[in-house]
């Protein structure tokens, strides 16, 4: 079967418009391009806290639905969405711990979305950690600088993931 497919595979060169143009001279030199890109990231940082307030509120609202006894289908996907948003930009914005905690929460929520029995404590402890991680004295810290917090969240996520994997 595989051999049949290999025999009829067509292999051909492709030069995309992107490659043609990107290789031409005349672009922004690499060092300058990177300086400008880092400057663009810095330029959006002042609005990050306000954005984070909104995302946190949406996450808290979603978890509140869980606490009110709603089934996972009515809140887990939404909670995961906002958690992913925070994870994806936290480190870039200088909030490394926030990304770490949000990533751990995403793992828990992935498992809940996949159908493992919902343990709300595993979610709420992450919410508390997110609140902590955005405090000025914590935001620039790495997980390695807070080993107890990091290993605690890790073990919570691992426990859920094991159930997820086994189940």
């Amino acid at each position, binding site marked *: 079967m595989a*051999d049949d*497919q*290999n*025999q*009829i*595979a*067509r*292999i*051909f*060169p*492709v*030069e*995309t*418009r*992107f*490659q043609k*143009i*990107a*290789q*031409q*001279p*005349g*672009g*922004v*030199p*690499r060092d300058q*391009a*990177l*300086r*400008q*890109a*880092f*400057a*663009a*990231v810095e*330029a*959006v940082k002042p609005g*990050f806290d306000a*954005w984070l307030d909104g995302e946190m509120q949406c996450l808290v609202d979603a978890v509140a639905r869980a606490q009110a006894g709603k089934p996972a289908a009515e809140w887990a996907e939404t909670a995961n*969405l906002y958690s*992913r*948003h925070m*994870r*994806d*930009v*936290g*480190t*870039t914005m200088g909030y490394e711990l926030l*990304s770490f905690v949000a*990533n751990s929460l*995403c793992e828990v929520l992935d498992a809940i979305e996949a159908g493992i029995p919902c343990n709300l404590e595993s979610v709420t402890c992450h919410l508390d950690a997110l609140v902590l991680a955005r405090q000025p004295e914590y935001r620039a810290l790495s997980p390695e600088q807070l080993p107890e917090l990091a290993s605690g969240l890790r073990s919570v996520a691992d426990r859920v993931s094991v159930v997820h994997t086994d189940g």
Partner: protein
Amino acid sequence: MSKPSINLRDLVILVADGSSYFSMLVHGMLRGFGTSKVIEVRDAVDALRIMTSQRVDVLICDAKLPPHGGQALTRAIRRKPDNEHRTIPILIMSADTREATIKRARDAGANMVVAKPLSPLNLYDRLTWIAMTSRQFVDCPNYFGPDRRFKNDGNQKGSGRRKIDQPAEAAADSVDADAEPALRTA
């Protein structure tokens, strides 16, 4: 030796991500690199709509892009024979860089996976790699996309795993610098 620069002027880059804030960040980085036009969309439906109405040179999309993920969007683009964007470079952004995730992106036809959180340096280097590295395309019943083996230099007997692979000497001009691990990014 200094690292190469790329020219992104006159190129159109489509950024597809469900998060407006994240998209804004990527948009800012790309503009900093000198890209003249960056388009943002929040889901795959809008991405496909944009690609039917105008030229796009590169797609950068989230692995979790609504509604069905970046891999599904990649497959939709690669699968359609009359799609003029069928061979555009596609970068999938993912916070999950486990091997299985990367293989799924590769098997969908993505050129590369770039890790989230994203830094300007990572993004620039991935774009540079795609710009500077020629990769053949494979069209077969269950796959259409960049050659997933990356390195097509044949084996000791002069042919690759596929029966139609060229001898090593003839294929040498299509050899890429790094084999498969290059798909896995920082």
